[in-house]
């Protein structure tokens, strides 16, 4: 593995760590900043790949990621998080146990799924061995776990954004999807975040309801 491969491994590992960071947060603004870091990391990887492949498309992709995902989504979410409202702080978040459950979840998610499923597929990735795919996969399951473990709407939105980020990373490592489709996906996610942020004003805590049971 060349030094660039090592460097990309390290950067991708930081994406996973940012997923853990978001998991352990209680304040919504920190979570939003965490996902900003994540989007920046992915944009950075896209720029590195653009330099390697000498492809303008990937450069545009990186700029799109940084703008649509990093900047716009953070702007929309930040607008909806007022300074002192109570729903920006989630009580009953036990960081230690959440981190440990997250870890266990990911061990199951990656170790088993990757070893059984992907190693038989013989994939060729852009940077180094195909095992770099564990990072986007782990981020994906972290996003799912964030949705499942939290009760506030914001956290679930950020979990969904984490999932989509992991897919962008997955596509970058494997084969970058055509720009048109990628751009449509970004706009889709942006629209979803906007609509959810309209909804979050009304409903910010979720708990089991009698009428919706069964």
């Amino acid at each position, binding site marked *: 593995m060349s030094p660039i491969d090592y460097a990309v491994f390290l950067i991708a590992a930081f994406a996973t760590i940012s997923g853990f960071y978001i998991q352990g947060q209680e304040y919504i603004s920190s979570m939003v900043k965490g996902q900003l870091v994540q989007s920046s990391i992915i944009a950075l990887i896209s720029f590195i790949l653009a330099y390697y492949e000498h492809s303008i498309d990937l450069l545009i992709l990186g700029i799109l990621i940084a703008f649509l995902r990093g900047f716009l989504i953070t702007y929309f979410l930040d607008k909806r998080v007022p300074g002192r409202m109570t729903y920006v702080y989630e009580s009953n978040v036990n960081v230690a146990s959440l981190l440990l459950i997250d870890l266990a979840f990911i061990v199951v998610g990656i170790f088993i799924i990757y070893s059984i499923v992907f190693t038989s597929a013989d*994939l060729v990735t852009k940077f180094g061995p195909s095992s770099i795919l564990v990072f986007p996969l782990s981020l994906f399951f972290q996003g799912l776990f964030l949705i499942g473990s939290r009760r506030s709407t914001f956290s679930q939105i950020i*979990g969904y954004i984490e999932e989509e980020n992991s897919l962008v990373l997955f596509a970058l490592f494997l084969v970058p999807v055509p720009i048109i489709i990628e751009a449509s996906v970004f706009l889709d996610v942006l629209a979803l975040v906007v609509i959810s942020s309209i909804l979050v004003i009304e*409903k910010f805590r979720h708990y089991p309801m009698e009428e919706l049971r069964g």
Partner: protein
Amino acid sequence: MDPIPLIIIILPGLANIFYRVNIKLAGAVSASLTVALSLFLYTQLPLTGLFYIDRITWVFLVMVSSVYLLSTLYSWEYVNSIRNRGISQNNYYLLLNFFTASMFFSLVMNNYGFMWVGIEATTISSALLLVTEKSDVSLEATWRYIILVSAGVTFAFISVILIYYHFGTLDVYTILHSGGTASVVIKIAVAVALVGFGTKVGVFPVHTWLPDAHSEAPSPVSAMFSGVLLPVALYVLYRIYEISPFPQLYTWFAVISIAAASLFLAYQRKYKRMFAYSTMENMNLALFGFALGGAGVIGALLLLVSHSFGKAGAFYSSGNILKSSEKRDIAQIKGIWKGMPYTSSSLLLSSLAVTGTPPFGTFVGEFIILYAAVVTHAFLQFGIVLFFLMAAFISVNYNITGMIFRGSSDLKEPGKTMPIISLISSIIPLIIGVVIIGGFFNVLV
């Protein structure tokens, strides 16, 4: 590039231009035009290039546009009389048009990536429709719908990426006519797509958003969900399945989902949720048919078309009942045969339709699917499906006949056009079934 599919996609969007003026009428006009254009498109099949439309797509197109027309007409009176509105009436029609436009988009595009984008777009545009009748419960249901469906459909993008990795292109026509492949990557993609798009179709265990969304949405929107949205997702799933069929996985998941739907159906207390589970059951039956291949595909198509109209009729009738009685529980509705003749007949007809009673079209479809199951020696699945279909038949019709005939009440028809539309919608499966069975007899005799 052929203009007709493009016009079909744009038409609902064009109706939105009349947002201030009279969007209701514009919506109805555009709906009728799309029905006409879809029927006309049959002469131009098959289409490739930017769009990919073959006979199967055409069936879905006609189905989508017809239910769109019916729902738009039904919404005129329904949405008018909602008291605590979450979104304004014009916004409702605006979103409804965008919803339909995104479904047309998913159907006709010749690119898997755009199909995925279209399915996500349907989630976005239909999300706010669920808060038309604003209450705490409907807000919660809306949120569950958004987050569960989005999180699930995101899985499907992994399969799109893997397809692109293996084939180097996302062109549906090219991939389907490339002559099959035995690659592990594609098998993974097809399996993951089951989880991904299966969330939208209602495959167990990712179906949990289905009953909540259907029971809290206003009735025309529920009809669109059941009759149109789920079949479109099933269409996209089928297109991915066609690349490299994986019958064991798909048929078993379909059978398990049918069993789960029947079990959940048995103890439902609210009629809209009951119909939602019946939708899940029918969708998975169609998935079963698609997975079996051959005659199963024809059976699935028949089932889907008849079921769309039948389920739309069922939801329209439920909407009528909800409007006049304001109650959601089955036990609280008694004996509506007296004051609501249209609604009770349409309710009875549609519930018979969705449970697969002869001579409705759904029965013909189910019969062909089960025949295909026997032909491909899937005897165990055949037995399980048959048993649970019968169980669902009993549960649904017991509840419905109780609602209609038990005792008597003095509920009246809520308005003029709504009952008629629901009756029209419920009769269509009957017509389809009779025509097909008659056609069989003509051929045989």
